[in-house]
């Protein structure tokens, strides 16, 4: 029709960008601009200079909280993996319908508000809750405190984040060609060795994807550790909130946010070099 080939090609290359434009503009306006403002605040408040960063990187409180944040994120990721991997495997072996049923159960918790899920753990683990009742019934006269410990906050975070892990691993497991397993078996690989040399490497991308997602989301957790955790094991987001809410220390809070962001980006960067970020959602 009167359209030359080159014009068509040009339209083709332009079109994706046009589709992306609303999102790009949205992110630039509401994410990048505020982020730049946070960076500026971190070096100008209360006075220009790098004092905030010095404080964050050398102060014992901040080091402790950052270490605890990364430690907790690592622990939660490991727990999600331990819980998620067998469940994802189960889903990949049962019928499609049953797998959908399990998936529905897992995603159902996504439909409940974050805060409600956190409070639900308070009820479950509370002094008058079912867990303590069960322990007392089993003859433990003085059950150890469950709430406001590392245990309660970790449990709740694993509960909230496990679906990310399960869905990532399940997607990968589902795509594994069953004939690969059969041929491995025909070569004499059974049990442990089949798992170690064939199945685990095949599912590794799912493990990596799920772990990175869970780890990164966990780094920024705020409400759950504040409401359920032990006062001695604060996480970075809670401390940042406290800096700003209680001390109006916008500069220090900003510097902490930037440090957290940079460390997270470094972790994502390492992951990208190893596995490729593009696989994260593929």
């Amino acid at each position: 029709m009167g359209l030359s080939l080159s014009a068509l090609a040009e339209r083709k290359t332009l079109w994706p960008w046009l589709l992306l434009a609303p999102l790009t503009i949205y992110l630039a306006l509401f994410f990048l601009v505020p982020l730049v403002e946070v960076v500026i605040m971190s070096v100008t408040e209360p006075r220009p200079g790098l004092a905030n960063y010095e404080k964050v990187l050398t102060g014992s409180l901040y080091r402790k909280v950052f270490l605890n944040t990364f430690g907790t994120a690592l622990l939660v990721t490991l727990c999600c993996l331990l819980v998620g991997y067998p469940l994802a495997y189960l889903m990949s072996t049962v019928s499609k319908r049953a797998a959908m049923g399990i998936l529905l159960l897992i995603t159902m918790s996504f439909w409940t508000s974050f805060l409600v899920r956190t409070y639900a753990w308070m009820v479950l683990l509370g002094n008058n809750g079912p867990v303590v009742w069960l322990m007392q019934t089993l003859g433990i006269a003085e059950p150890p405190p469950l709430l406001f410990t590392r245990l309660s906050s970790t449990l709740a975070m694993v509960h909230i984040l496990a679906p990310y892990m399960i869905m990532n691993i399940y997607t990968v497991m589902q795509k594994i060609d069953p004939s690969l397993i059969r041929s491995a078996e025909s070569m004499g690989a059974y049990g442990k060795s089949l798992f170690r040399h064939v199945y685990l490497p095949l599912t590794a991308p799912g493990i990596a994807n799920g772990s990175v997602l869970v780890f990164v989301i966990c780094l920024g957790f705020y409400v759950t550790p504040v409401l359920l955790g032990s006062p001695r094991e604060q996480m970075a987001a809670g401390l940042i909130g406290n800096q700003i809410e209680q001390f109006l220390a916008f500069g220090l809070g900003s510097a902490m946010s930037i440090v957290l962001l940079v460390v997270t980006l470094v972790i994502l960067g390492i992951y990208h070099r190893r596995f490729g970020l593009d696989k994260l959602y593929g």
Partner: protein
Amino acid sequence: MTIKKTHNALIRPNRRLFLQGTAALAGASALAAPSIGRAQSKELYINSWGGPWLEAATENLFDPFTEATGIKVNTVSPVSFAKLAAQVRSGVYEFDVTTLGGGDIVAANNAGLLEPLEEPYPGGLFQNGVGSHAFATMMAWRTDKGWEETPQSWADFWDVERFPGGRSLQRYPARVLPLALLADGVAPEDLYPLDIDRAFAKLDEIKEHVRVWWTGGAQSTQILRDGEVDMIGIWHGRYFEAEDAGAPVAFTWNQAELDSAYWVVAKETPNMEAAKMFVDFATSAEPLAGFVAQANYGAMNPAADEFIPDSAKPRMPTAPGNVEMTFEQDMLNFGADPQEVAMRFDEWLAS
């Protein structure tokens, strides 16, 4: 949605200049511009504490104010000291009026966040806030613990031998440090200026027994009501919520710590006139009396006293018979920079 619109309408000139660089937003603020006049005279945004506070305020302050002036009152939650600072900084106002406690108001006024106000009644002005009501941080406990004695004072709160069980205090050093000194035997009249080191040393003793450093009023009620902790330093209004819910709890006015709440106007808010009118109204005798009687606060405007029914008094920390047992916070004679103390408290908490 209304709030969003007001955001745009309330953007200060310098902010607007900046935003005009981005075509999309400039268009939005131009669209909202016609509502500036209306927003200024007919609507007011007030920061709300929610819960029983909001119920009492709506019934006794907000609705009567709208009736008297035609200015609509909208509430914004949660109460945020940081937001007050952020909106003065950015020029985008989410609320025009808020209440601050004695600790925060000194910091806020020093930071230039508060609009200067006039004294509405003798002694009613403090750090550019108008005194509204007094509330107490007091000691409360579960009565189902089988303790042989009844706790009497903060020294008993610290005594985990006679009163074993989990403790909770507010994560707010300006209120907690004086309690530690009382527990250590300092007389209420000798508290201020605070001996900060001594207070921290005393806090060391109770630290491992404090299972929760509560940060929200609702949270404190919940952990007492559900028996998560056995003894707590709690705001009196939040305590009565637990008691009214039927929880096995008790309290004492003895050594309760009186704090005051002040109405303040956010610096340079475009709704200034309506905001100042509201503060005057909310601290005038009759509306204030209705508010404190319903929410169990103590009125700071003495003129309100004659409108307060006797039946409301037993639950008021400032009522005769109660007030003699309490002591008052003295933020102006704190003994150290409260901010530095708060930072030290944070470090202490994590160590």
